[in-house]
């Protein structure tokens, strides 16, 4: 009877390979979870910057409104509209519409935001006062779509 012995060496280096594989997998998971969390943080920071910019320009618009209000408050009832226009035009960024009693100003932010304000200058027996006609938030630069033909799906084949 003949005995045949076959030696199969499976252990040499196997443990190390499995360890490296497991470590690599876990490293990838750790990196992915950190990347996801950091992306969320960046998004939250971006949203904060936008909100901060909006409230900053809102504050500047309110400040300008208070300056206009102060000028109107000090204006004598007998003063002509020309005189009032001259004094109000002294405020940076304030302009008048073709209609003499409509005043406009804009406040620009750093994140492509601007607030456009339109005021009606009115007067009664007590004196001059303003009425806010519009207070709009919009973008400074709009994207240019003129040369681009966008193929939009119309809902049917």
């Amino acid at each position: 009877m003949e005995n045949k012995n076959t030696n199969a060496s499976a252990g040499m280096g196997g443990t190390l390979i499995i360890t490296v594989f497991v470590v690599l997998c876990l490293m990838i998971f750790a990196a992915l979870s950190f990347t996801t969390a950091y992306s969320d943080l960046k998004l939250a920071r971006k949203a904060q910057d936008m909100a901060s910019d909006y409230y900053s320009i809102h504050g500047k618009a309110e400040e300008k409104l208070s300056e206009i209000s102060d000028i109107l408050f000090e204006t004598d009832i007998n003063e002509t509209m020309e005189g009032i226009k001259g004094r109000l035009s002294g405020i940076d960024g304030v302009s008048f519409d073709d209609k003499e009693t409509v005043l406009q100003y804009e406040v620009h932010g750093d994140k492509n935001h601007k607030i456009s304000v339109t005021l009606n200058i009115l007067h009664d027996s007590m004196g001059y006062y303003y009425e806010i006609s519009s207070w709009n938030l919009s973008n400074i630069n709009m994207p240019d779509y003129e040369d681009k033909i966008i193929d939009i799906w119309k809902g049917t084949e």
Partner: protein
Amino acid sequence: MKNKVSLNSRVSLWEIILSVLIFAAAGIIMLNCFAIARFTQIRANDKTIAGAIIQSDFEIIKSLNTTDEMYEFLDNSYERKNIGNNNYAYTKYFDKNWNQNSMDKEYAVTIRISDEDMKSGNLMIINISAEKEKPYPFIKKEGMEQIYSIESKKFFPDFGGIHGE
């Protein structure tokens, strides 16, 4: 005829020690990475929630017509603290789940108001900020950590200036 197959698992002690060392070293880095990821996610969520709370309260203040209405809103919603020179800070506290709670104070939202006196009204400089009582782990900072802060102004006219439709 008899065939014998003997599986010779010759795993040397050195190999096991090396594997354990690699796993331990990588484990420390990985655990740190997972922990940093967790607290980064918490920071991101805190920023988002604090932003929503702050903006909501700011919009309420913006919608009010007089300083009396504003102070009434602040007195009803916030705790008032004198911070000197007749200036007040209004604070409300939240627990770790961002539920308003005065006992378990984890987060604080504070409104600081200063009044710029104008001839025809009051220009209020309003700063709203959200802070965390304890700093986030893995970030070496002492004291309260600011999560979110915005500053703006609101003019309350004494006369005439009315908001049209």
